[in-house]
């Protein structure tokens, strides 16, 4: 009987981790559909930024209530997962609380897991109330209707259930130890300390040892199977940030936020145009002859860079960007969060085609128009509030600007007034129709 349980556990563990690895490989494959971008510089500074913002949650606490609750859930999640190590060893070898040889330190560990579990449970319940009942602006946006809202709630329910299972497992285990049941009880006395689950004991009062064992085993199994399921749910949900926040912050931009990258393809063209010795009729160099001309800007996920695609997988749809967006606050369609969600949705659609057909075949859709509307792109003031607000270093603005570049340089589709301003810049060096020769007139006016 014991050996069957151990084999089943091994099967579940291998399946759970194996499936997870498959999904991570798909995720990396999809991100690599984007253009390469060199972020191999300043490793020390990048590590420090990751330590501060991702590990240290420094931007989360800018909103004190949700930030504080998030820190609790985050710390709880990280620390309680140490317990998973013991659960895996116990599961594989049929042992009971294998780490209890650590004695007093073990009791401290279990006790702190229990306290954190309770805090996480409370935190998650408050999150659930905030999200569903408190009419918080960033949870009411149109892009959160349907699946994104359900997804968020499923994650919260899951965490609630996992914490309850953990405490039930401990409570019954404790009761079985008190009852001196073999396998649970140890000659050295009670292993573990149960400051929270001890209060659950009255629920189990009067139950036979056999019933208690069933409940304990059921809670133990559901807890670990739940964790394995949750691990695999990540890829299909908005919850990947628990893993990707770290690389995402690491690879985020270190330069001033106001700096927008310059396109090398354009620089080459401009240089050629301004070079008096350039031969406009020159035949392209051998290897360039059949090469497709470089596309300016982005109309689909393939035109974005790998960091931008990583950004889209990292986004957990908290909406702090959207809440700060001046366009969104004044009723425009633009929502930086939706830009990230759309990018991810389109990337997943492309990934799914590759999964089934082996390579990407045009399905008649693209990121522009089929996901992100022009009206959204043109509403942006490039104020960087979204970038500043993101707790994990996502840059929705860079995607908006890359898509504007496509609209202007590939389609000549700028709004009319902007096209006029650009013509003015081109003709007379100012966005208004004033002559460059009049530029110093102000000095003579009184």
């Amino acid at each position, binding site marked *: 009987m014991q050996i069957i349980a151990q084999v089943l556990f091994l099967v579940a563990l291998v399946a759970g981790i194996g499936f997870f690895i498959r999904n991570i490989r798909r995720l990396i494959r999809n991100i690599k559909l984007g253009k390469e971008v060199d972020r191999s510089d300043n490793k020390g500074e990048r590590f420090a930024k990751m330590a501060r913002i991702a590990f240290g949650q420094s931007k989360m606490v800018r909103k004190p209530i949700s930030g504080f609750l998030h820190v609790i859930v985050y710390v709880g999640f990280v620390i309680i997962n140490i317990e998973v190590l013991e659960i895996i060893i116990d599961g594989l070898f049929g042992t009971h609380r294998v780490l209890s040889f650590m004695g007093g330190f073990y009791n401290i560990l279990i006790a702190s897991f229990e306290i954190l579990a309770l805090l996480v449970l409370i935190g998650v319940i408050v999150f659930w109330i905030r999200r569903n009942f408190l009419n918080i602006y960033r949870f009411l946006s149109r892009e959160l209707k349907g699946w994104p809202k359900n997804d968020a709630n499923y994650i919260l329910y899951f965490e609630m259930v996992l914490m309850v299972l953990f405490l039930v497992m401990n409570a019954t285990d404790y009761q079985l130890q008190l009852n001196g049941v073999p396998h649970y009880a140890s000659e050295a006395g009670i292993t573990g300390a149960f400051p929270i689950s001890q209060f659950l004991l009255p629920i189990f009062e009067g139950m036979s040892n056999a019933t208690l064992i069933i409940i304990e085993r059921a809670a133990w199994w559901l807890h670990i199977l739940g964790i394995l399921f949750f691990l695999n749910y990540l890829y299909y949900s908005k919850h990947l940030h628990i893993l990707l926040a770290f690389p995402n912050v690491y690879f985020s931009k270190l330069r*001033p*936020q*106001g*700096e*927008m990258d*310059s*396109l090398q393809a*354009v*620089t080459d*063209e*401009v240089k050629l*145009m*301004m070079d008096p010795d350039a031969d406009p009729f020159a035949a392209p160099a051998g290897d360039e002859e059949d090469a497709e001309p470089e596309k*300016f*800007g982005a109309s689909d996920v393939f035109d974005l860079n790998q960091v931008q695609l990583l950004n889209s997988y990292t986004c957990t749809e908290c909406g702090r960007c959207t809440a*700060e967006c*001046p*366009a969104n*606050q*004044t*009723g*425009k*369609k633009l929502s930086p969060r939706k830009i990230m969600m759309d990018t991810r949705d389109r990337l997943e659609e492309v990934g799914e085609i590759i999964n089934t057909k082996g390579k990407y075949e045009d399905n008649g859709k693209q990121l522009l128009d089929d996901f992100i509307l022009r*009206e959204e792109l*043109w*509403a942006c*003031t*490039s*104020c960087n*509030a979204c*970038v*500043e607000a993101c707790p994990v270093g996502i840059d929705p603005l860079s995607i908006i*600007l890359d898509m*504007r*570049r496509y609209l*202007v*340089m590939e389609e000549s589709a*700028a*709004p009319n*007034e*902007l096209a*006029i*301003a*650009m013509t003015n*810049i*081109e003709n007379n*060096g*100012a*966005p*208004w129709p*004033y002559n*460059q*020769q*009049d*530029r*110093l007139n*102000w*000095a*003579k*006016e009184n």
Partner: protein
Amino acid sequence: MAEALKVPTMAEYMAEGKKPEVLFWVGCAGSFDDRAKKITKAFVKLLHEAGVDFAVLGTEESCTGDPAKRAGNEFLFQMQAATNIEVLNGYEIEKVVTACPHCFNTLKNEYPALGGNYEVMHHTQFLKALLNEGKLKVEGGKFKGKRITFHDPCYLGRANGEYEAPRDLLRKLEVELVEMRKCKSNGLCCGAGGGQMFKEPEPGNKDVNIERTEQAMEVKPEVIAAGCPFCNTMMTDGVKGKNKEDSVEVMDVAELIANAHDL
């Protein structure tokens, strides 16, 4: 005020075989917009008062390309950048000061990759440096004790992390500096950036400058201080939209200092 301002150009300096210590980059708004021209003049007066050896490019200056770049026209931006860099490098410019945060950001952050490397300062940073060096005196004049709130320009604040220089100057004027609930890194945009200055907004339920003006009105200021000609226009329009132009003024930090000195 009858006397015309003395504004030397780089060409004049060059003709005399001299080089000024700093180039004042006026920008399109500062050159052509009637409201912004007042800021330009106020800043020039302060430069004279502090005895700064400066010059402007005058008719050799052209748009930095910022609005084109933000609107997606990288091509036009780089054309503008290439022409400007040629002029700037031709004059061997090392230090640039500008009263426009958009020019500031572009010159400082985006020209280096295209061959234009200069030390670039926003005029509030420059004035603060003059103050620290003792070249410029800033003290409470007519604005002493007045309730003033500072609207952070996105391209000075969030884009380049400068929040304190304009505030330090205002404090020196001994004003009652009050902060809006959205300020510094959380500051709300005036609505002009990213090319919005030159187009109608997308459909919505409010204009961004109205929203921002309402936030400013919450703290009941007598003056809304700005550090950007575009913010200035947007906030001025917002104040007019609220029919408050008689009680609330929108002024650039440079104008406040110059006016306090009765320049």
